[in-house]
């Protein structure tokens, strides 16, 4: 009996540990008509940004607007909307801001190009760096300079 209880407790603890990552998201119950819809719900709710609490996606946010958007997302999925249609619906209302992967337009082109540009900048910098190093090093000392160094090194310290 005691052993059974211990096993039960251990199982309960393990069960909770296993659940831990799941609890990070807001808990809500939606009945999906297919597991595929549920998967898409999770993907999309993590890709859509909450307009109110801007550094959270709508899956994590407790803001009322995030809840509303989750409901809309659920309803549209059940009605058979495609991912693109749902994203277009959200963007029409909240702008590209609402996507964590915004489309490329006048406002976001710099955002998309930045990694490439920075990489190129770095490459150019490195190129210059390695090109100029050897020439800088090869300046030999004149005899007078060498003598000066020897003299300085030979001076007693105070």
């Amino acid at each position: 009996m005691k052993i059974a209880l211990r096993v039960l407790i251990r199982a309960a603890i393990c069960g909770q540990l296993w659940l831990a990552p799941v609890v990070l998201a807001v808990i809500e119950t939606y009945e999906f008509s297919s597991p595929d819809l549920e998967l898409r719900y999770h993907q999309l709710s993590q890709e859509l940004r909450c307009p109110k609490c801007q550094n959270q996606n709508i899956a994590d946010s407790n803001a009322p607007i995030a809840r509303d958007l989750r409901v809309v997302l659920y309803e549209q999925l059940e009605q058979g909307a495609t991912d693109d249609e749902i994203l277009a619906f959200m963007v029409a209302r909240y702008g590209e801001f609402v996507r964590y992967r915004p489309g490329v337009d006048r406002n976001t082109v710099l955002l998309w190009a930045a990694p490439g540009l920075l990489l190129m900048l770095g490459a150019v910098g490195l190129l210059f760096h390695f090109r100029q190093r050897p020439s800088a090093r090869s300046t030999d000392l004149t005899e007078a300079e060498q003598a000066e160094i020897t003299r300085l090194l030979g001076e007693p310290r105070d």
Partner: protein
Amino acid sequence: MRAKRFIPLVAFAVLAGLLFRGLSIDPTELPAARLGQPFPDFAQPELNSGRQISVSALSELPALVNVWATWCYSCRVEHPYLLALAEQGVPIYGLNYKDEPVKAREWLAQLGDPYQLNVVDKEGSVGLDLGVYGAPETYVVDAAGHIAHRHVGVLDEAVFQRDFIRWFPAAASPVVAVGSEGEQ
């Protein structure tokens, strides 16, 4: 190669300039996606009369559409200024956003009613179509029925004079000072 030694200085100046610019940008202010589009149609009850209304009820244009709720503290701050604007002859339509109509009617009875009429949006569906993400928000609907401007947060004298006045030149005459008392 003299110029090379100035590269760090230039880089610093550019970075400092960008960061300084960043100080005066409010990241919570989102560009309105609906700008330039017709005000989205709706079928909702009116707050006081209970009759069903649609977008055609916004008849006196240009007008303000003010998104408010009794649970919204800033709306209370903003309310006296809306009253002052209404007195100036600026038409204001209310969107009572995710609120209890009973509480909303009480609020208007107590604090005064600056609105031509109020759209009851208990579920927030009109708000969703507009791209509302909190209250208060105030929209300008221009003479053609298009959304011309959105302001997020408390509307006060300074904001009105800066961003709204061009649609309501008649309100340029001094707005009652009582309006700015809620300014933070």
